[in-house]
């Protein structure tokens, strides 16, 4: 177990390192931020000074090395647009995305898994067919469109929920969050639902497929032959088996939702990191892009690591670290 953690940590460092190079080169290739930032009427002298200030006159490898040196001192740079520390900038936006994603994932799990279990347990029932039809809608209809429909219905026509923004913030564990106030909840619920639909559809289908398959297995027949009631068979025998693939996909989805909640954030004007990254791409704000993408990589590494641990907890046949 300890060896597993160490080797995973080393892998993570290599991945982050490789990623930083790719991002750096990629961002360099997009274009020169000076062209976007500077007033076209500025003199060549001003332009030169600005370029020198950001170190953009240096060759790429030089820029990268000085970036690394700064990172080693815990400094990821300053935003060219906001002129504040990027870490501060990203972390000021992160709680908004986190709370949105957590609520979305919670909705998807609480509805998706029971619905999938039911649809797999009674695959021929009308309810199961309705659930499956809805799950197809969930992951085939574009998010932004459903988002706009939700706003039309609940904000414009019915007037029950606000159409965007984060609402009142409270503090929870020292972090400002909408989840601490009722008004904040009324703001978060609709975008979270919107964001959850795709994941819900996915979870329903995964759970259902696992359930249908598991109900045909010999261990379920054997459990039946022992006189176990179906409730116990489903929750004690089957659920644990099907949670193995579900956890895997769930982890990947959690990562990609955190990283790319941007569509929902735009539709609901949610001030999260997704909006920040889109803005920084438009303005070629390099330090923000680099920091954000590296953060995403670290996030994925952490999630994959957690998934592996949970996986090994769920399936005794899996041994961590590859040692037999």
């Amino acid at each position, binding site marked *: 177990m300890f060896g597993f953690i160490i080797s995973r940590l080393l892998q993570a460092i290599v991945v982050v390192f490789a990623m930083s190079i790719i991002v750096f080169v990629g961002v360099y290739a997009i274009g020169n931020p000076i062209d976007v930032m500077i007033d076209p009427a500025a003199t060549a002298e001003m332009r030169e000074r600005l370029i020198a200030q950001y170190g953009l006159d240096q060759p790429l490898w030089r820029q990268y090395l000085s970036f690394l040196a700064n990172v080693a001192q815990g400094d990821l740079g300053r935003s060219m647009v906001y002129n504040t520390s990027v870490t501060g900038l990203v972390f000021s936006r992160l709680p908004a995305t986190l709370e949105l994603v957590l609520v979305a994932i919670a909705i998807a799990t609480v509805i998706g898994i029971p619905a999938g279990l039911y649809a797999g347990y009674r695959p021929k029932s009308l309810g199961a067919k309705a659930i499956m039809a809805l799950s197809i809608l969930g992951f085939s209809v574009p998010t932004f469109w459903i988002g706009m429909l939700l706003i039309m219905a609940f904000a414009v026509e019915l007037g029950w929920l606000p159409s965007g923004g984060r609402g009142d913030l409270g503090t929870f564990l020292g972090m400002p969050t909408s989840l601490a106030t009722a008004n904040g909840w009324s703001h978060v619920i609709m975008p979270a639902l919107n964001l959850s639909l795709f994941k819900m559809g996915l979870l329903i289908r995964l759970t259902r497929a696992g359930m249908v398959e598991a109900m045909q*297995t*010999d*261990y379920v*027949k*054997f*459990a039946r*032959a*022992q006189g176990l009631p179906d409730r116990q068979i489903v929750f004690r025998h089957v659920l644990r*088996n099907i949670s193995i693939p579900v956890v895997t996909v769930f982890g990947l989805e959690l990562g990609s939702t955190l990283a790319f909640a941007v569509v929902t954030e735009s539709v609901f004007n949610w001030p999260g990191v997704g909006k920040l990254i889109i803005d920084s791409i438009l303005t070629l704000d390099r330090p923000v892009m680099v920091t954000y993408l590296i953060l995403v990589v670290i996030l994925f590494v952490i999630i994959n690591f957690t998934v592996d641990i949970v996986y090994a907890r769920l399936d005794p*046949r899996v041994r961590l670290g590859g040692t037999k």
Partner: protein
Amino acid sequence: MTAALDVQRLTTRFDTRAGTVTAVDDVSFSVHRGRIMGLVGESGSGKSVTGFSILGLIEEPGRVSDGKVMVEDTDLRSLSPERMRSMRGRKVSMVFQDPMMTLNPVLRIGDQMAMAVRVHDPMPKARALERARDALGIVGIPSPEERLAAYPHQLSGGMRQRVAIATALLHRPAVIIADEPTTALDVSIQGQILAEVRRLADETQTAIVWITHDLAVVSSLADDICVMYAGKIVERGTAEEVIGQPRHPYTRGLLDSVPGQHEPGARLPQIPGSTPQLSHLPSGCPFRNRCPRATQICATVPPFTSIGGHSALCHHPLEAA
């Protein structure tokens, strides 16, 4: 003395797109306490479906359409689903073919067995585990205490099958249906399990229905034998009678195709043709298209002809040699 298991005119049908198929056709047999009955047949002969029908575990589109399943004077078919469930595992139990698949891979042996104990006898888990441990000891598993904490993949196939048998034995049921439980095992392990099952039947006075396609296995294990063909029992008698003096041509054919009793290098006799599809059975005797003794009369339904307790469903039974 009433039989532990008395199956009368059991009929199970499957409603398929091609029409209704009768997988178990008017099957009757009984097994007394402590006896082992071998239910022999090829794949698709309906022997496993018979087992599942007895336990009331036939799933859609199948249904048990007729007959009685008497376990110690209770007709299982007359029970409500909930009462039927309470009989399973307690009065009648089942063991399956593939020991790799019958245990849940993600639960500890002890947890699975404790669950099976407590579903019928509510008790603290610690006590249920003790009972599971004792059951493991009874089926000859060394250091049962440690095995309780093991996961199925940590045990060998033979060990797992013993665990399955121990689980089936937890409530000392009157009847255990064993569906080819040694087919997936090595021959040496198979022998051990057979000896163990024989001993358990004698000691616990459990009636065992041993479903198999392997005549060699039943001839050494069973007290009585029923031979199934196309959903029907075509011959029944004591193991000695059926193996020693088969009266149905099908049984004769099966016995002749067992390797080992022929000259080395000689061509193995075979039954011509293959098992008929249940949806396209010939009229009258289902075996007549493959039978060397068939005549015109075989197109009509054959009668059961008996000598003592040994009977065959045939117009032209083989004479005692």
